[in-house]
């Protein structure tokens, strides 16, 4: 039961992440690699606020989401002019800047949470408290699973409402033909700004949930491998509609569990897993470039 709850929490985190990433990749038509950076911003904001400043669950998550939404301008402003390969490179650059900021923004002598030591560097932040809301303490795996499910449900509802609304249709229009959308009088730049901000905020919410569950974070949450994994999730599941990312999140969760039964030596398990993801990416691109249940092909 604990194991199932554990899987459920991860599934919910992945679902939130996939939902956010789908907004950028599937609805804005921009491949990106900076998602782990925004995920990490959410994790670190949550950890800092709850460990160093003793904030509650909701304000900490809101801080992370707000910060990620503001910092999303680092990739949404370049998206005004760039697309395709060069946008990917810019997002990769943003990812590297975030990662190096997390690594370097600390002084060993300064206490955590001051301006000179925001991230604790390579050591990471440990002892992140479990969520505490309205007097209820979510300190068992089961209760955390319920909290994660509720959070993911709220995010899914909001996402569904947004993407099915006229706002979502404009996003699809500017993905398919930016010039035409502009010609119809839509403020293309503003729409991109909003979509990226919402998507990055969602990623940060996923990151905050992750930090509150594992209660220890270090710079590896912002590593490029994580970005690639998240990209795998949406690319394999399918992009451009609502169900694709859900399938992708489920696949990404189920895949390592299946590999677990194949008796791979522990020392090689991580490499084999990543290699399998790489192979999946290549194979998918050859035989089904829109993903398992996607409705939009990457340009």
């Amino acid at each position, binding site marked *: 039961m604990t194991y199932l709850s554990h899987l459920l929490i991860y599934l919910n985190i992945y679902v939130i992440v996939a939902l956010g990433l789908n907004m950028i990749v599937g609805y804005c038509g921009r491949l990106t690699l900076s998602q782990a950076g925004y995920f990490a911003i959410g994790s670190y904001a949550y950890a800092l606020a709850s460990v160093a400043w003793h904030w509650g669950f909701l304000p900490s998550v809101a801080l992370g989401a707000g910060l990620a939404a503001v910092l999303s301008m680092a990739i949404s402003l370049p998206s005004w002019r760039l697309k395709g390969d060069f946008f990917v490179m810019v997002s990769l650059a943003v990812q590297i*800047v975030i990662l190096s900021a997390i690594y370097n923004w600390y002084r060993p002598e300064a206490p955590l949470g001051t301006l000179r030591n925001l991230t604790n560097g390579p050591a990471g932040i440990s002892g992140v408290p479990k969520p505490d809301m309205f007097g209820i303490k979510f300190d068992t795996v089961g209760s955390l699973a319920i909290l994660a499910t509720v959070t993911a449900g709220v995010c899914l509802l909001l996402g569904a409402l947004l993407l099915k609304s006229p706002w979502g249709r404009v996003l699809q229009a500017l993905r398919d033909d930016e010039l035409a959308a502009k010609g119809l009088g839509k403020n293309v730049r503003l729409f991109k700004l909003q979509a990226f901000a919402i998507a990055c905020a969602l990623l940060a919410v996923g990151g905050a949930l992750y930090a509150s569950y594992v209660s220890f974070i270090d710079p590896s949450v912002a590593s490029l491998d994580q970005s690639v994994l998240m990209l795998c999730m949406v690319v394999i599941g399918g992009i451009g509609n609502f169900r694709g990312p859900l399938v992708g999140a489920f696949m990404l969760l189920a895949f390592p569990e299946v590999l677990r039964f194949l008796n791979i030596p522990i020392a090689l398990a991580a490499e084999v897993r990543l290699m399998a993801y790489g192979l999946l990416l290549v194979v998918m691109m050859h035989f089904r470039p829109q993903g398992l249940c996607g409705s939009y092909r990457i340009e």
Partner: protein
Amino acid sequence: MQVAVNGIITGLSIALLALGFTVTYLPTRVFHVALGGVYTSVPFVAWTCLSLGYPWPIAALCAFFSGVTLSVACEAFNHGRLERKGASSGVHLVSSLGLYIIIIQATTMIWGNQPKVLRVGVDSIFNLGGLVLTRAQVLSAVVSTMLLAGFYVWLSFSNLGLQFRGLADNPVEMSLRGYSVRRLRLVSFAISGLLACASALAFAFDIGFDPNGGLTTLLLAVVAMIIGGRRSFIGPLVGGVLLGVVRAEVSWFLSASWQEAATFILLSVFLLIRPEGLIGRKGRLEAEA
């Protein structure tokens, strides 16, 4: 002066990788991310040959051979097939990213995650009229200059080089005139692997290597290509040297941890003010990727 010369020498190695990237990007429009994997894995091949007791030339030959094979295999088994299906550039990019992951993970599985070096101890030093250069720097400068010069001579004067420039200009017209585009694409991936190998060996000989930095270094090369001008073959050389000098000066006057920041500030300035690069020319709107 010393700092500038150091920067130029590093810049030449960056330029080699950037040129290797451009050599596939211009004619085939494939964003060859897997080149980062080639770059990462070849020093390990050289290291294995050296630790088996073979001399340097044979180790370098083995490394070049494996790098070229790997790069050509990417085209033969992945990009060539995708191209025949009419895949978009994003599909090429994602599959290349997949290949990059596969190559890196295979390298880690075979050789482990530890940093390694190609030479032992302190390097010998040359003194050239006030400038102090290490043997690794001199070697890397000489090899880079020779390779770059050789490439430009080949590109400008040989028949294949002419076909190559034609392919970069207009692939459809090239195939209509009866040239084998498939063969030319294979050649471009081979050259790209060769240049990436040279750059990787130069860096590895100077400062050592590990399996984790490939994509970051490739990113540096792409930045060099963008600031130099992505529509010409000379652009990467100019951009690479400029980037090397700027990075060296920044780490001299500020600190080494500002290098990345300086690189990306330079990139954003160029993307905002002069997106076609230093010596690039503006393309037509529908041709802009």
